[in-house]
């Protein structure tokens, strides 16, 4: 088993935000399609350097309700939101990615924006 670096002290740690989103598509998408779509959207709109700064990170996608969570750097929420806004299709099928809300913790994000979609 490979070792991992230690968690950094709070002042050095990355400050994240979690974004809840809903995908509206011609058809339902699966987790891998969404994961790839998030990366592609970021690379296309923000580039390799912008993506490194924004640090998008796929957290979860619920295929039943087509809702999910993506994480990013606290300073760049609007850049990632814009990248998602520019998405017009996912894996060849028309789609809209709508953001539901933003929070500093997954717990609060679920409570405020995903509960109505049946998330626990």
């Amino acid at each position, binding site marked *: 088993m490979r070792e991992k670096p230690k968690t950094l002290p709070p002042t050095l740690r990355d400050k994240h935000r979690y974004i809840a989103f809903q995908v509206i598509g011609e058809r339902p998408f699966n987790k891998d399609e969404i994961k790839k779509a998030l990366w592609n959207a970021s690379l*296309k709109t923000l580039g390799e350097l912008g993506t490194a700064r924004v640090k998008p990170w796929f957290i979860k996608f619920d295929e039943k309700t087509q809702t999910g969570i993506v994480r990013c750097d606290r300073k760049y929420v609007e850049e990632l*939101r814009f990248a998602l*806004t*520019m998405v*017009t299709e996912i894996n060849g099928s028309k789609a809209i990615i709508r*953001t539901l809300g933003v929070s500093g913790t997954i717990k609060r994000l679920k409570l405020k924006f995903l509960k109505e979609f049946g998330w626990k």
Partner: protein
Amino acid sequence: MKWVEMDIRSEEAYNQAKEWYDEVVFTKKIYLKSSPNFEELKSEVKSLREKYEKVALLLITEKPSLVREVRKRISNALIYVQGGNLRVVRFAIENKVDAIISPEYGRKDSGLDHVLARLAARNDVAIGFALSPLLRANSYERANILKFMMRNWRLVDKYKVPRFLTSSAESKWEVRFPRDLMSLGINIGMEIPQAKASLSFYPEMILKKFKKS
């Protein structure tokens, strides 16, 4: 505060927008090469207003004089003019249309300057920043359009021109949630409250014209 989508161009797009916005303006595109039949146009506007309540006509023309004609004779719809032709845009601003949509449209420059921006502010003509041309463009074009939108935003901000953000959606797939459309504004240079006002305060000011008419 109300969310207002100022430029929606088809029924399915309208229905999608209605789910996310408090007010939606249905836009009818009109390509004008010569004077339209005003009786027909008026009756079309009337039936559109019965269906959609708030209606705009988007004039797409190379002839400035046709803009004036429509502006004079149609009173129960907002008059938008498609940006892209500087002569038409200048004339439209002089004739106090309600908005210019995408001044940079189809151009190799931003399609707006300080003289036009100042005049637009004085004549209460709004500038519409539209998402859909970006959605349809390739990466090279997107970078250019965004660059021009950033430049136009600086002018609109500096001269306090009325402004709004819109999807200018032709299909339901081009409609976006208000908070997501705000991110377009923020990324071309707006402060968050300015982006919000571009989907609420400024559109509401324009919608008041309906009550007057």
